[in-house]
């Protein structure tokens, strides 16, 4: 008899493990940071190593919203709608200085950080952030997902 005959875990832990390694992301790309997103997502840096390789172009199929680039007041309702269309559980990453704080733009047009519109889980600063930083941010989010209280709706009364 060798190895594992049985395994015990907690439902919370198992759910967190499953969720953090199967992030379907929706890239909301508006600006130059998109180049760094492509770099991070493609083979060279390969975001798929961390289980976040499946890009979905419908918010209804995604559970990680990547807001990449400058969000203007003109675009703000669109971002809010995309966020509202995503199913729970969902997470948001603010990618780059503009999404984090408005970046170099402090004027009539640009939203001063997307956390004024949607709740943000991880902020990745940089103009633009290097792919290593993006991957680091992703690992931080996975850590957060693993340790947060898992929301599972089945079997509970609304």
């Amino acid at each position, binding site marked *: 008899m060798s190895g594992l005959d049985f395994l015990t875990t907690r439902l919370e832990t198992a759910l967190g493990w499953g969720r953090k390694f199967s992030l379907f992301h929706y890239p909301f790309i508006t600006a130059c940071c998109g180049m760094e997103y492509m770099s991070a997502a493609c083979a060279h840096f390969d975001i798929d190593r961390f289980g976040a390789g499946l890009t979905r172009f419908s918010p209804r199929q995604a559970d990680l919203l990547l807001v990449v680039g400058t969000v203007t007041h003109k675009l703000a309702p669109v971002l809010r709608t995309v966020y509202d269309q995503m199913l729970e559980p969902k997470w948001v990453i603010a990618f780059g200085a503009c999404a984090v704080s408005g970046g170099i733009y402090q*004027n009539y*047009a640009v939203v001063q950080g997307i956390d004024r*519109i949607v709740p943000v889980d991880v902020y990745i600063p940089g103009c633009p952030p290097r792919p290593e930083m993006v991957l680091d941010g992703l690992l931080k989010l996975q850590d957060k997902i693993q340790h947060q209280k898992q929301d599972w709706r089945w079997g509970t009364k609304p």
Partner: protein
Amino acid sequence: MGNETLIEAIRTKLAAAVESVSESLGDQVLTVRPGSLRSAMAALREGPFDYAVLLDLTCVDYAAGEGRFELVYHLYSMSRNTRLRLKVSVPAADPAVDSLNGLWKNADWLEREVFDMFGVRFDGHPYLRRLLTYEGFEGHPLRKSYPWRLAQPRIPMKDKA
């Protein structure tokens, strides 16, 4: 036609419209009276001058004085590979000039952008509506009198401490 003779020909032809001629960064600059802008443009577009391309239209807000807004038109002649800049001062109280729609198709959006950003009216424009900002936006953001950093959100924004 050489550059000097060309400018002389323009001065002769548009004597009533041109206020002054100068040179800046290698290009000739004409200052034109607002009332005769459209006729001057129509003349420059045709015939020997052949400025067939309207490269750009911008505006400058000098904040004070009678001629507060200055419109800057950039023309380009493909046959001679030369450029020409025209400037028109418009009054602060009622900033308006004639539209160039009908001469150049791209004047449509260029004029809408200047209207949006500076509030200069283009008489005769078929569809003078905001181009870049959204419906419900008040004021003209590139005017010097527009409050610094004043945003006009379309949805509620959470305030950060």
